[in-house]
């Protein structure tokens, strides 16, 4: 036993380096209303890890021809989304899903990522694009080799993870740490809830349309003043198609009852994240509102929460539509899209 204690003391003296903790700053409304963010025990937030993740996020070194970084499709000015319906990869080939925006990802409590929830955890999510044939088309062995031979990265990994030996696990851990810092919580509506500002009558009326089960009934899937994420992060068929070209969740679970279901996206920052839906079919917010008002298509898996499907939807009045749009735009967080912590210097 004495020998064992001596050994452990010796180890501690050799290996005392720890990166600088950098806990997530939880916004006031989040702290007041929803559960704590999900931070894996084996990947705590650190100053050095976040900085490394940010550098990797903006570095095209991850792609096979050094042409594409994560930020190419996840533009900070667009709340880390892409203004194109589909994003093209290193060969100019386009994917078949609209790029999802990136914010408040640490509050995705079920940790299912992508439109169809095919990947568990943010760390695993970061694995996918690097080797995807359409996206970065690289191999992890090649990425590891390049970073290992790089003039800066070995030192940065040493600072972040106390090892200069770079591997894919540490790379994705760093990227995930950076992504968890992408917190959007400073919209006009947030400030209204905090008592810092007032809403226009149009915006207030729009919020009522949003919360009214007989009108918008948006709150069942898209949050409320009690859930500042503005999404339930759950998968629904929201009546886009009678027949499905893309099975969504159904292709992941193999359950036909999940066909045509996709994750409810957050309604924060809609002003910057168009086009909309998993396939970017709607160019404008008006198109989206019109869809729910009179464009619903019936199918076997359409969510029962979709109202009056046989009539195409709830049939909002023009005033309701205008007000609803005004409210939705009050969820825009201009500070988020210009935050220098999220932009490559």
């Amino acid at each position: 036993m004495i020998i064992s204690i001596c050994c452990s003391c010796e180890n501690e003296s050799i290996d005392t380096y720890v990166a600088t903790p950098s806990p997530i700053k939880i916004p006031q409304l989040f702290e007041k209303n929803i559960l704590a963010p999900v931070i894996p025990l084996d990947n705590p937030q650190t100053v050095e890890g976040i900085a490394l993740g940010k550098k990797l996020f903006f570095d095209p070194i991850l792609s096979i021809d050094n042409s594409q970084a994560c930020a190419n499709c996840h533009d900070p000015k667009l709340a880390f989304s892409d203004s194109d319906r589909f994003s093209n990869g290193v060969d100019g080939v386009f994917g078949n899903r609209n790029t999802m925006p990136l914010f408040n990802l640490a509050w995705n409590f079920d940790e299912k990522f992508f439109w169809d929830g095919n990947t568990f955890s943010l760390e695993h999510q970061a694995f996918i694009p690097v080797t995807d044939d359409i996206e970065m088309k690289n191999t992890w062995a090649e990425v590891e080799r390049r970073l290992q031979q790089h003039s800066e990265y070995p030192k940065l990994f040493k600072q972040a993870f106390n090892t200069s030996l770079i591997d894919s696990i540490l790379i994705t851990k760093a990227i995930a740490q950076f992504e968890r810092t992408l917190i959007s919580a400073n919209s006009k509506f947030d400030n209204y809830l905090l008592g810092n500002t007032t809403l226009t009558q149009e915006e207030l009326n729009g919020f009522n349309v949003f919360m009214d089960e007989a009108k918008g009934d948006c709150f069942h899937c898209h949050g409320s003043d009690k859930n500042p994420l503005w999404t339930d992060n759950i998968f629904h068929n929201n009546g886009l198609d009678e027949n499905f070209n893309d099975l969504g969740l159904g292709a992941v679970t193999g359950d036909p009852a999940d066909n045509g279901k996709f994750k409810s996206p957050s309604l924060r920052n809609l002003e910057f994240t168009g086009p909309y839906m998993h396939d970017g079919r709607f160019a404008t917010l008006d198109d989206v509102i019109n869809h729910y008002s009179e464009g619903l298509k019936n199918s076997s898996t359409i969510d029962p929460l979709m109202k009056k499907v046989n009539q195409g939807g709830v049939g909002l009045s023009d005033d309701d539509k205008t007000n609803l749009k005004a409210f939705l735009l009050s969820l825009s967080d201009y500070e988020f899209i210009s935050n220098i912590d999220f932009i490559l210097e």
Partner: protein
Amino acid sequence: MKNFIPIFLICLLVMMSCSKDNDDKVQKTQANITFNFSHNWDGTAVTNTDFNTIKYINANNDQLRIDRLRYLISNITFTTSNNEEFVLSGYNLVDVTNNENLSFTPINLIPTGTYTNVKFTFGFNNEDNSKNYLDLNSTSWFVPKMLGGGYHYMQFDGKFINASEDEQGFNYHAIRAVDNPGVNPTFPQNTFFEVNLGEVTLFNDATFNIEMNIAEWFKNPKKWDLNVLNQMLMPNSDAQIMMFENGQNVFSLKSINQ
């Protein structure tokens, strides 16, 4: 010395196992309580594997399917013959859709002995309903302020074959009944309710097996016509009161394991 160590360990083991036997024989003074929730349709078991397929017929002869079912229970209370109440802390959101929280073990214990009644609340009483619950907010269980705020008691969503022979959605969402939705809503009557399970004598940790007969939501005393009452029922206080009335016969105590 070599022989002494194994003999000593064996003796120690025997002593420890004797001690365990003695512990088991001691009369328990405090019991852990577990509530298990299972579901049936007029006696036929229902699990989430039965969802998403039209396979049930309600009392009004509407053919229907279940797509989503989750409900809240709270305030499990044990009452003694002296009317002393022991309330188990916490609440439980039973999520049949995802097979989650079908078993609930509150953290505090109940003294063993005889109780004249055990009950739980379907939903929240009005006081509890006015509080803020981070976990329930996170799972979109809230009710809009214009409808009185607070939380759902139940979300029961599905589809039925309507009079035009089309599949149509229904949202049987139970909340606190509300009139005059808007800035100053009013409440015609309470629509949470207590489920009384009767007398019990606790002498050990106990598991209460609770059954919900889903068909009862449509049956007794009000026969429910889904062609009339299907969606947008949250602002409909008459519908909420009907849910409250039909809910009285939904739950039953199947058995207690001790």
